[in-house]
């Protein structure tokens, strides 16, 4: 459900950037979404279609790069993908880790005409 607020913020940012560039139309929007954020890209698309109507971003193609949740073990310093229900380091079985990726939620670029 947070996709509605997230999509609105994203659209505001897209329109602000497109306007700044003097664009007439936004063709593509490239997003980076970390897995940990729990953002469902189909929902973003659904809200986007609705919210972008009548703007220069209407019918723009949404492209989301999903970033898996990565952790670095505090014991052996190795990095690994954090799997659901298994939060142990696969190298040393350590339990203490720092999250190093998976919280991204940003607008990477837009393609405009």
């Amino acid at each position, binding site marked *: 459900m*947070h996709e509605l607020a997230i999509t609105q913020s994203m659209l505001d940012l897209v329109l602000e950037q497109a306007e700044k560039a003097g664009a007439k139309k936004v063709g593509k929007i490239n997003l980076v979404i970390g897995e940990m*954020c729990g953002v469902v890209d189909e929902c973003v698309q659904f809200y986007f279609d609705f919210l972008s109507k009548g703007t220069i971003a209407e019918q723009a193609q949404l492209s989301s790069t999903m970033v898996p949740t990565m952790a670095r073990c505090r014991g052996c310093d190795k990095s690994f993908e954090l799997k659901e229900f298994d939060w142990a380091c696969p190298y040393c079985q350590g339990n203490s880790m720092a999250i190093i990726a998976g919280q991204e939620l940003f*607008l990477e*670029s837009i393609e405009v005409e």
Partner: protein
Amino acid sequence: MEIKVLKDILGANEQIAERNRQLLDSKGVFAVNLMSSPGAGKTSLILETIKGLKGKTRIGVIEGDVSSSIDAEIIGKEGVPVIQINTGGECHLDANMTYRALSNLPLQDIALLFIENVGNLICTAEFALGEHRKVLISSVPEGDDKPFKYPLMFHKADVVLINKIDLLPHLKFDVQAYSHAIRGINEKAEIFEISCATGQGMQQWLSWLQNQLRLR
């Protein structure tokens, strides 16, 4: 033509949250963003905290709910300033809603402000409100697998309260494994076991709060 943007999608919310924090700091208010799933005990915790700190600190409350003002009415009976925010469908509070509520509270009379977020473990984690600390209330009936299901929330929390520990004899909940999992992705989190119903463990929570107020 491609335009590189590389900007946080929730950057606008972050900016308003920062402005809220500055406003709170200027008035000497310490704000806690209380988050949990529905029914974990956010309102009960606020009520018990008001009773426990009566005469010791001045408390104010922002109540966030999708609809209704039931919680604000309950809190209001305790004689503390309270503002209800109805999000009208949104599953979380955001910085702008919080700002509007702050504008309607007598901040000069408040030292400790609880912002009770909407009951939700996913959406609330994303939106900063301008709080000084994020407190997550989990509860024994929810089960001990929740850190694995909502890692972002458990990763971001400054404090995790395990509420309803009076129910431990009746339910399968491994407190040790649960705490171990939380500490794995959040080594700094304070974890307190409490029961709002019996008062067990509440003293530790109250001491932590008082300590935070003293350190300011």
